[in-house]
């Protein structure tokens, strides 16, 4: 026994040396010091990307009917400009933008308008939508013409073209791209960063896009750089996608000021603020915009769409998305038109392998759970994740043990344990004091909570109340 204990430390050190990578890179903990192209905090969830990474991306079957909601972006919803019985071309404008932060919507098939009415929207409400029955011909709107070389256009003209093509952030946030590229004159921006991190588990839509169309991604970045008027461009890609990195690198001309930044694989590496930190080492000030840190961030999918629009004149009407999860038979990534019901996409993946318990639009960390599979694919739908009843089970929350894991993993260095507790006790001023509005809702805290507390939903409630509080204050001060 004596000898055994005496030898123990040696044995222990041996085990540690052999397995320390595994232990350090365990789900929650990131004990390795921050290297240059990363950020402090974050988590290592199981990525589950292999299933769709090695399956060739395909083009989805032509839909018979598409339901296109007039709200496919953040901002004011569109006003439908077609009515029942109209015949429309592919790419024809069917929804007019109603404000600056808004983007027009175009038909994704040619055919006849069947209805202009309220239909279920992935956000859970009924939203004014245009239903088009396809004639199967996909006749392109005769007004659509290629724009040609982007160098012939001024910054303002480029932004107008992007606006008219209805291009919005395709990473999921769907913020209108023309607003992003219109930098206020008082801000100094020196680079455009493309987000190819795709840090959400399960999703491989951006990966397949970068592999299939690297030249489009790079071309889109060039156009965005001209629109913003900067000389420097970056493309950030996580190091778990070496073939995408290689493809993109070979698409960049040798004398160009475009650089591929290889990022550490970690969630949420693709969050705007964390990406800016990883690429430039700068912080976006609290409450500020990326432009305040001198950067504009775009998703690689958005960039590819910008390039496509200049090449063909076509607006945004289709996108890559990953349909996966343990409830789906043949998971894969495919190019789907906007307005196709989720059920149709799932059916093309062989349907359900098991009874689904949860259907998520987007990734498992930030995606939105759906109440029905009859809602349409949107401009920002990067994935359809179908979980079985067992994987979808919500664990019972228990008391907070103040382990501090949530604060350790928070990429904004907040203290979710306090924010959530104060929100649950309706102490909104305290929530504000703990900077609740800086939360990016990435879900790292709730993921890593051993007590399985509902941190993110409590914080969301708190955020809304604090925003309401601030509005009240602003009214009072006036």
């Amino acid at each position, binding site marked *: *026994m*004596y000898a055994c*204990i*005496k030898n*123990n430390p040696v044995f*222990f050190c041996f085990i540690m040396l052999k397995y*320390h990578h595994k*232990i350090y890179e*365990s*789900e*929650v903990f990131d004990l390795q010091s921050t290297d240059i192209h990363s950020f402090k905090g974050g*988590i290592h*969830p*199981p990525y589950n990307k292999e299933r769709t990474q090695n399956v060739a991306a395909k083009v989805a079957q032509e839909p018979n009917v598409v339901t296109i909601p007039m709200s496919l972006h953040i901002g004011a919803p569109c006003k439908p400009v077609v009515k029942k019985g109209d015949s429309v071309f592919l790419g024809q404008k069917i929804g007019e933008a109603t404000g600056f932060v808004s983007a027009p919507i175009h038909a994704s098939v040619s055919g006849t308008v069947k209805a202009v009415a309220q*239909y279920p929207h992935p956000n*859970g409400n009924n939203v004014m939508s245009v239903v088009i029955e396809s004639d199967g011909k996909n006749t392109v709107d005769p007004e659509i013409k290629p724009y040609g070389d982007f160098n012939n256009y001024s910054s303002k003209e480029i932004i107008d073209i992007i606006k008219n093509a209805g291009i919005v952030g395709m990473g999921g946030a769907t913020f209108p791209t023309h607003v992003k590229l219109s930098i206020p004159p008082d801000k100094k921006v020196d680079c455009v960063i493309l987000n190819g991190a795709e840090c959400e588990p399960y999703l491989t839509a951006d990966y397949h896009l970068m592999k299939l169309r690297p030249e489009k991604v790079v071309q889109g970045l060039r156009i965005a750089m001209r629109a913003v008027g900067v000389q420097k461009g970056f493309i950030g890609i996580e190091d778990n996608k070496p073939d995408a990195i290689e493809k993109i690198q070979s698409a960049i001309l040798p004398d160009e000021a475009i650089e591929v930044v290889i990022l550490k694989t970690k969630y949420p590496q693709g969050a705007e*603020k964390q990406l800016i930190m990883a690429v430039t080492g700068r*912080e*976006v*000030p*609290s409450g500020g915009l990326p432009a305040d840190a001198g950067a504009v961030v775009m998703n690689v999918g958005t960039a590819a769409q910008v390039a496509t629009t200049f090449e063909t004149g076509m607006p945004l009407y289709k996108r890559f998305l990953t349909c996966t999860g343990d409830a789906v038979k043949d998971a894969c990534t495919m190019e789907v038109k906007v307005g196709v019901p989720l059920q149709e996409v799932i059916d093309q993946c062989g349907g359900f392998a098991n*009874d*689904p318990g*949860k*259907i*998520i639009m987007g990734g*498992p960390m*930030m*995606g939105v*759970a759906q109440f*029905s*599979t*009859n809602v349409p694919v949107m401009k920002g739908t990067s994935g359809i*994740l179908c979980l079985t009843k067992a*994987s*979808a089970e*919500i*664990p019972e929350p*228990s*008391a*907070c*043990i*103040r*382990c*501090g894991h949530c604060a350790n993993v928070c990429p*904004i*260095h*907040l*203290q979710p*344990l306090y924010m959530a507790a104060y929100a649950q006790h309706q102490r909104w001023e305290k929530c504000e004091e*703990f900077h609740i509005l*800086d939360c990016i809702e990435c879900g790292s805290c709730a*993921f*890593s*909570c*051993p*007590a*399985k507390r509902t941190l*993110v*939903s409590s914080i969301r409630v708190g955020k809304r109340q604090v925003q309401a509080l601030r509005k009240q204050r602003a009214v009072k001060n006036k």
Partner: protein
Amino acid sequence: MTNSNEPMLTVSSSPHIRCKQTTSSIMQNVVIALLPALFVAGYVFGIKALLIVAICVASCVLSEALIEKLMKKPITISDWSAVVTGVLLGFNMPVNAPWWMCIVGSVFAIGIVKQCFGGLGHNFINPALAARAFLLASWPTHMTGTAFIPTADTYTTATPLGLLKEGGNLSAMPSNMDLFLGLNGVYGSIGEISALALIIGGVYLIVRGVISWRIPTVYLATVAVLSVCFGKDPIFMLCSGGLMLGAFFMATDYVSSPSTPKGQIIYAFGCGLMTMIIRMVGGYPEGVSYSILLMNVAAPLIERFTKPRIYGAPIKEKKAKKIQEGGASND
């Protein structure tokens, strides 16, 4: 739009995936980490020590279940936290402690310190340590001196720190190696005799990500540096008494220690400082438990003043404020 064939879907807030770690897996890891020290205790003290630990664990778990039942709260003994409290309390008992004292201590730890303040996550001090302090104050003769001697033929009469403080037969002082391994003699409470076994457990917890390295490292480093300052042998100071048990298992209790990195460093430094002050100039030979209890009480305050700087906060907020204030006073 809806048809009857559509599946019933769960709709909940993101994130939709959770990590595998749970409260009970954390507590189980702590129990695993305490096993090496338990083995040493069994080897040195025999079955009696194991029995005491078993009584403590059983009475902690029972009183938790009973109190929660009486208060009509959900019974949470499956989270293993009462087991951890029981093992730690058992480790803090001398081997000659009577069985009823174990039960009284356990009921105090769970009933008063933990459940009276709201159960798991709400106790403001470490329940096992509070119970130890309570027992020490109530039955000092059972908790000190001869209570540590398992059989009549053992030659030591006091713990090494007791010897150091009260003088006496200094030739009975164990060597540092004996203190480190804890296999050759009886130098204290059940769980604190082998520094090596406790270090193995502590390193296991750090590697598994259960505790951070900060509290134990800073605590031990502070004691080592201060003992050099006091002109004592740092190795002796580190390996004797309940320091290793305290630094790795008691001071790191999540609930009663700060969760911020800076706060943990300040807290651990405070623990080390108090320990050395009590050991060197205080009335007791050993100060680990009281120093941790004192710092437990200070933890919320420390935490409040060590909020981490958030991403995007103005970097020189304080400096800017100072400059502003300075400018104002100059006017």
